[in-house]
Every structure is written in C-alpha cells, then in structure tokens.
C-alpha cells in the first residue's frame, strides 16, 4: 500500500490543469448552494448577502409556523423511513444472493441495477398507471413503492461492498467451530457489515427524501417535501423557501458526512483485522 499518489514526477502541466478542473467541478457543485445558505441568513425580505454581523435565523424560525410544511415533512419522513426499512433488508438479501450465486451473477446484478437506468418520470408514470389498475389509491404507500424501486440498487451496492469485507474463511471458521448458518450470519456477517447496513438505510432515506420525479406521479393528497418546495420555488418565493432549502441541504450534507466518516473508520478497522500482523505470522510458522 503506497501512501503517495501514483503519479509523482513531472506532468508537463497535467497536474495543474487537472487539479484546476477538479477545483472547477467542486466550485460549480458547492458554490451556488453555499451562496444560498448565506443568503438564507439575511433577515431582510430583499435577497442578497449581508455582513456576518447581521446574520439571523429569522426565516428559519418562520419555518416552524408553516403548517403545510409540517404536513409535507411528516409525509416525507413516513415515506423515507418506509423506503429505507424495506430497501435495506432487501438490498442485503440481494447482496447475499449475489455472493452465493455461481451462474448468472452478471445478469442478476444487471437486473438489480437496471432501475438506476430508467428516468424517474417514465418509471413514475408507468408505476402510477399500473398501481391505478391494481386499485391502489395514491398515498404515502404508493410513493414508498416507487422509492423502493429507486433506492434498492443503491442499497444492494452498499451491502455488496460491505459483504466483500466478510471473508468466506471467517464464516467457514465459525461453522467449523459448530455455529449453525443462522448463528454465523447473526454473529459474524451482520456485525462486520454494521456500518454498511447503517449507510444503506441512511442513503435510502436521503434519496427518498429528495426524490421529486417519481413522487410527482405517485403522490396522494399530502405533498412530500420536494413537491411542496417545487411549488414554493415557482410561486414568487418568500424568503422562507431559502431557509427551508438551506435546512434541507445542511441536514443532508451533515448526515452523509457522518456516514462517510463511519464507513472510512470501519474500513481502516477492517484492514487491521484482515491483515495478519507480522508478529502473529512469526508465532504460527
């Protein structure tokens, strides 16, 4: 394992050019949102930046009194938790199946990932028509069904990555020592995958929370957050929408950052466990 970058020497301007482009990417990804965050701290009704001494949470406090927002928040939380609670175990199950397969693995993976490759509008439209024929009234349940389809590929991939850290020999050792298959799964596989399962749940929740295209077709009487926001953004925006956008972004980024830190922590931990230390090797040989 090298601790340096792979390309170290002279790059004839390559490093400079590529780093500049990477910086440009990060700028267009983050700068507008950062500006929005700062603008949301402006207490005046007129949009724009104010000096930090005048920053205020006025518009954030105004959010608390918005009844329609509370309804949308409740609906989105319900859909997000339902989606994550379904996508995580089904994704894990798909990952275990993929691991166990000897034939047709490629096709199975392609089928599981295929939902990523259908645009949300078309998927939402088809699903809403099919559910209508089945007689399911649009509600948080129909959105959850649509979001399960959307988040499952991601949940499966996160579980697959976690499962790759569980060595078959570890399971075999547990089995040799007398553990039944279920015991080995609960005591060995699940604990080793803990961080990935948590990430899977959180990612599915966030993807559902921010999904707009499918929800548009599957929504019942109560809007979800993105649908509520879209309406507010297109109707002569009151400054509360900036505060609300800011809150959504800050919470999402904070949650993902925590999950990433947790995953990185587990990976370095896992690496220590998996690589036999030289001292151990000395004992056995």
């Amino acid at each position: 394992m090298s601790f340096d970058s792979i390309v170290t020497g002279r790059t004839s301007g390559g490093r400079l050019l590529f780093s500049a482009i990477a910086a440009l990417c990060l700028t267009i990804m983050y700068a507008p949102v950062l500006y929005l965050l700062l603008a949301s701290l402006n207490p005046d009704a007129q949009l724009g930046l104010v000096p930090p001494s005048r920053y205020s949470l006025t518009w954030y406090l105004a959010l608390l009194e918005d009844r329609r927002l509370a309804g949308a928040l409740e609906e989105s939380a319900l859909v997000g938790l339902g989606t994550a609670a379904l996508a995580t175990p089904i994704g894990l199950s798909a990952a275990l199946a993929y691991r166990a397969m000897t034939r047709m693995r490629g096709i199975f993976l392609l089928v599981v990932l295929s939902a990523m490759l259908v645009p949300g509008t078309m998927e939402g439209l088809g699903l809403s028509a099919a559910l209508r024929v089945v007689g399911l009234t649009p509600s948080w349940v129909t959105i959850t069904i649509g979001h399960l389809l959307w988040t499952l590929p991601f949940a499966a991939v996160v579980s697959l990555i976690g499962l790759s850290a569980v060595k078959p020999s570890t399971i075999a050792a547990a089995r040799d020592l007398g553990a039944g298959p279920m015991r080995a799964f609960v005591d060995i596989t699940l604990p080793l995958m803990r961080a990935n399962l948590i990430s899977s749940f959180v990612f599915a929740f966030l993807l559902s929370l921010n999904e707009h295209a499918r929800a548009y077709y599957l929504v019942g009487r109560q809007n979800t957050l993105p649908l509520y926001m879209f309406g507010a953004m297109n109707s002569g925006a009151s400054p509360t929408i900036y505060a609300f956008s800011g809150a959504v972004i800050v919470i999402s980024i904070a949650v993902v950052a925590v999950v990433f830190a947790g995953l990185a922590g587990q990976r370095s931990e896992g690496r220590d466990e998996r690589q036999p230390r030289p001292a151990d090797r000395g004992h056995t040989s």
Partner: protein
Amino acid sequence: MLDESGGHENVGARWRPTTFLLALPSLAVLVGLGFIPLALMATWSFWSFDPDTYWIKPAWSLASYAALLEDGRATVFLRTAGLAALTTAVSTLLAVPAATVVGLMSGPRRAALLLALFTIPFFTSGLVRAFAWRLVLGRHGVVNNALVSLGIVQTPVEWLLFSDFAVVLGMVAAYLPFAIIPIVLAFARIEHSVIRASLDLGAGFWTMFSTIVLPLVMPGIVAGFLFVFVVAVGTSMEVQLLGGAGASSISIMINDVLRVVNFPLAFAIATVVVTLLIVLITVANRALRLSRLFESLGI
C-alpha cells in the same frame, strides 16, 4: 425479510433453494414494480382514450404514435436529446480530469476526501441545487453583480438565467457525481505498476495518460456518460426552474399531455424514450462489459 436470509450460502453453494429465496425479494421488486409496469405502459400506449371513464380502453390504435410527430413534439424530443447530449459531453470532459486527480494524483487520504466531496451532492436535494443557480445567475445575482462592478459589462447579462445555458450548467453541476464516480471505480482496477513502468520507460505524462490510462478507464467513462445522459433526458426540474419562457423537455411534455388526460400519448412518449435508452445501454454494455466496473469494489 431477515428470517429467510440465513446466510447459509456464505460457506459455499450447498443449498440452492436458499440462493433463490435470497434473490427473490429484489427480483420481485425489480420485475413487479419495474419491468411489468413499463411493459404494461408500452402495451397501453397502443390503446385508446376512454371518455366514459377518463382512462383507457383496449381499442388498439397507432394514433398515439402518429401524434408523436404532431404539434412540434419531435422538436421537443430533439431539443431534450440535444441538451442532454451537451450536458453529458461537458460532464464527461470535466469528470475525466477530476477523476484522474482522485485516482492517480492523490494519496489515499486526499483521494478519499475528494471522492466524498464529489459524492455528497448526490444525496442532497437536486431541487435545491437547481434553485440555488437562480440566485447566482439572476439579473442581480452574484455573477452579474461581479461582472458589472468589474466593468466587464455595462448592464447585467440577460442570457445567464432562464436560458439553455442555465439549464446545461445546472444539469452539469447536478450530475457530475454520476460521471465522476464510475471513472474513479475504473481507476481502482488499473495496476499501478503499469503506469509506473510506462513513466520509468520514459513516456511523458500525456503519452502515458492517452495511451494507457484513457483506454483502461474507458468503461468508466462510458458508464458515466450513460448515467448522465439517462438522468438528463428524464429530468424536468432544471428546465422548469432555469429554462427560458416556453422551454420544454420530454418530461414536461408528458405532464402537459397528462393534463389533458391523453394517457395513451403520455405512455407512447415514455415508451419511446425507455426503448431508445434500453437500446443505447445494451449496445454500450455489449461493447464494454460495464458490469465489470463493480469488480473494483471487490464484489
């Protein structure tokens, strides 16, 4: 669900039915909620509108497909595909160097940090990110204020917002993670010794990059290209929030058609798009075995 995922199979494929049981829930979701509705939609696109029920009836007809070419719908198709292609091209041109910085030019810590930074926006609201561009690009937005105060322009530039420029910029910024991450995955599969060897043998950076790195990461580039194109073809919010007056896209057209309850036509538009995308993805997958990308994840 956990009850049936006994994990028996971790030891080896001794008990086949368990594998099937483990695969069943995800297959049921993908087939039952994904494939079947799309197939039903394709079928119903050949049915007719039923004025009695405000739904559809099984009177077979090609009228919806004929209507695809009316009322400037073909133009909307081409415009959407064009903007999506432009978005995809720009995203790819930015993503290759950005992913190279992660994959070749950073130590493990910085690579992990950069990868996290490139991934995080994917999990945040696309709606908010599109909306944020309005504040930046507007008549009195940051960019125009800067341009005016620096004396580069006399009056605010009008085409920054509510234009194709704004739509493409918004989509590029939103979908860069889709382009960058597959390329980073492809980098993980490159043997570092190959690159070191070429540099040791005297290849300059650009020679090494174009003859060794680019061909090896090509599956990642194509995968990213496809991901970005698919979402850019299907999206409506960037066009709705950042596009000019009367700007349309396939998704907006579908919504307009639904507003006048012309279900068969909406189904026909969606079916054509999904079919074309399936063809595109199948061809790319045949040519480049894209599923191999996941091998670099160790799965």
